[in-house]
């Protein structure tokens, strides 16, 4: 059983400075969990605490139900794949992969069998006698994976393993890692700052910021129901549009958002119960770029006038940045829509998935999920 439990785990490095604070998380056996967050948020430190490479200042770490706080890395039966791969440069691929088994006293026939199996699984068969210096980045990455697989650990910890690969290779490896997880069925903890990896690879994502675990849940759930503005903006490209507004109630009970004097958005009726009590107060409106469209395919979508300031044509789609009133807004539009800079265009906002946040704390104003 390789569940990993973090019970209010913290890492202190000075009197009052924490790099990780009160992380509370239970990872089930066989789950693929992603730690996502900006640089310096503590995700790598948390991973290293699970691995035993970093001591735990307070809280408890349990792997398979047993307390592991003081257990040395080699006795935890976990394998780590580092961002830099950390292949032993003076050893061949075969020896790199065999090292862990050798340290645990496996005999040479067993080592040979396991290394060859893993090499075949990862397509490394022809590279076994080469040294890491003679391999490409993608090959080295697979050797690092092979080294981890061969040990048949109870959990895999991956510290941004795909960061050093080019985009195409990264896309391939994303699929391969997911396939590997399905095949091996072991617990995997994957640290990344890349949201595509986070969205596509994990059973669950855990968003971290400044040492704290901000939100965890299934990727699409977290996407659809962000807990605060940070999560909302982080899990999207381009980031979610956050606009200051005032929630006002009209005489007939309808709620609308006054973004600026002439700019309004009507709150859909189904959200009225959730937002009633905030009527009259300032709020932050979150509109995703992908919820803005160039044509009104649904009559409920609300028109807005935007002056185009820039258009990024990405091939498959376009990212338009413009001004709605005095506010900057970004929209993800179809690839055939190509206005020029300075043009005034009418875009249509789907207000159903809109989120409202408290301006002071950034926390979401709860409403039932769609």
């Amino acid at each position, binding site marked *: 059983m390789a569940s990993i439990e973090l019970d209010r785990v913290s890492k202190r490095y000075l009197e009052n400075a924490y790099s990780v604070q009160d992380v509370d998380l239970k990872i089930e056996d066989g789950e693929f969990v992603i730690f996502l967050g900006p640089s310096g948020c503590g995700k790598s430190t948390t991973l290293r605490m699970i691995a035993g490479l970093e001591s735990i200042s307070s809280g408890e770490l349990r792997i398979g139900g047993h307390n592991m706080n003081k257990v040395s890395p080699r006795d935890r039966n976990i394998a780590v794949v580092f961002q*830099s791969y950390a292949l032993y440069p003076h050893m061949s691929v075969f020896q790199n992969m065999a090292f862990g088994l050798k340290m*645990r006293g496996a005999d040479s026939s067993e080592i040979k069998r396991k290394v060859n199996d893993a090499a075949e699984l990862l397509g490394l068969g022809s590279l076994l006698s080469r040294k890491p210096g003679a391999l490409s980045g993608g090959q080295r990455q697979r050797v690092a994976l092979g080294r981890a697989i061969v040990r048949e650990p109870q959990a895999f910890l991956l510290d941004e393993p795909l960061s050093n690969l080019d985009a195409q290779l990264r896309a391939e490896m994303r699929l391969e890692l997911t396939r590997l997880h399905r095949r091996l069925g072991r617990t995997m903890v994957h640290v990344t700052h890349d949201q595509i990896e986070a969205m596509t690879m994990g059973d669950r994502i855990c968003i971290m910021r400044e040492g704290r675990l901000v939100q965890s849940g299934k990727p699409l759930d977290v996407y659809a129901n962000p807990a605060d503005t940070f999560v909302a903006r982080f899990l999207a490209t381009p980031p979610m549009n956050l606009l200051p507004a005032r929630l006002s109630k009209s005489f007939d009970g309808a709620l609308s958002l006054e973004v600026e004097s002439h700019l309004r958005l009507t709150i859909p009726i189904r959200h009225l119960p959730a937002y009633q009590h905030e009527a009259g107060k300032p709020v932050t409106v979150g509109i995703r770029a992908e919820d803005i469209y160039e044509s009104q395919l649904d009559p409920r979508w609300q028109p807005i006038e935007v002056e185009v300031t820039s258009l990024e044509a990405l091939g498959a789609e376009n990212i338009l940045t413009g001004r709605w009133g005095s506010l900057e807004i970004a929209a993800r539009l179809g690839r055939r829509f190509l206005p020029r800079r300075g043009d005034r265009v009418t875009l249509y906002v789907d207000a159903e998935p809109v989120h409202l946040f408290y301006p002071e704390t950034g926390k979401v104003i709860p409403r039932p999920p769609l």
Partner: protein
Amino acid sequence: MRKFGLHLGLLIACALIILPPLWALRTSLVPESMSYSTDWFPSLTLDNYRSLFERNHFLTYYANSLIVACGSVLLAMPFATATGYAFARFRTGGRLARFVVLATQMLPPVALVLPAFALLRGAGLSNSLTGLVIVYAALNLPFLTWILMGFFEGIPADLEWAAMTDGTSAWGAFWRIVLPISLPGLAAAAVLGFILSWNEFLFALVLSGPSTATIPVALAALQTSNGIQIGKVSAGVVLAIVPLMIGSIFVQRFFVKGLTFGSVK
């Protein structure tokens, strides 16, 4: 035109550095009486060399230098390696320890010579090769530690972490992973230590005796009341330089490798 000036300058600088040893080489192969003649090669002879070995027991001094230089390096390296690694990885002793190590190098040797003499005398090791080996090891230790510390800092800690999760202890990671990778750096440091010991004069002068003298001392002794026997001194200088040249070529190759080292992306 400017390039010509640059080349000329470089040529002059090279000449200033190369001509003295070349002159020593030439003088060593020329009979004593013709040492200062203006002809470059009036007549060639190996008499100077022969005389050094036959009459001045140069072989003994050569052996002494080799024993002392090699011995001090062998003695100092394990300590320097372990200390350098501790400084680099575990920040043992903090900045104070590092500063102290560096500070000992700033002491003028003259200040240390007499205390060293007194200590060796007390231990019954004065005028002995053993005593000199110990003193040289102690003298070179800070320098070697510093070099090795810098070298270890350049090796990413990832490799040791990978080894520890793979199943080694911290010591195992050092022994099986860091050391094999560091061999070029260790070799370079060892050769540097060798060169420092080989060239050392002051401590050798004070701490060694007639039969345990090293080459620098022996060469100085060629300055007799009859004047300096420049032919023999030149021969001695040439012989003294040979191991250093071999060592330098060796160090150069590994230094480059050590400086551009990067096993991890």
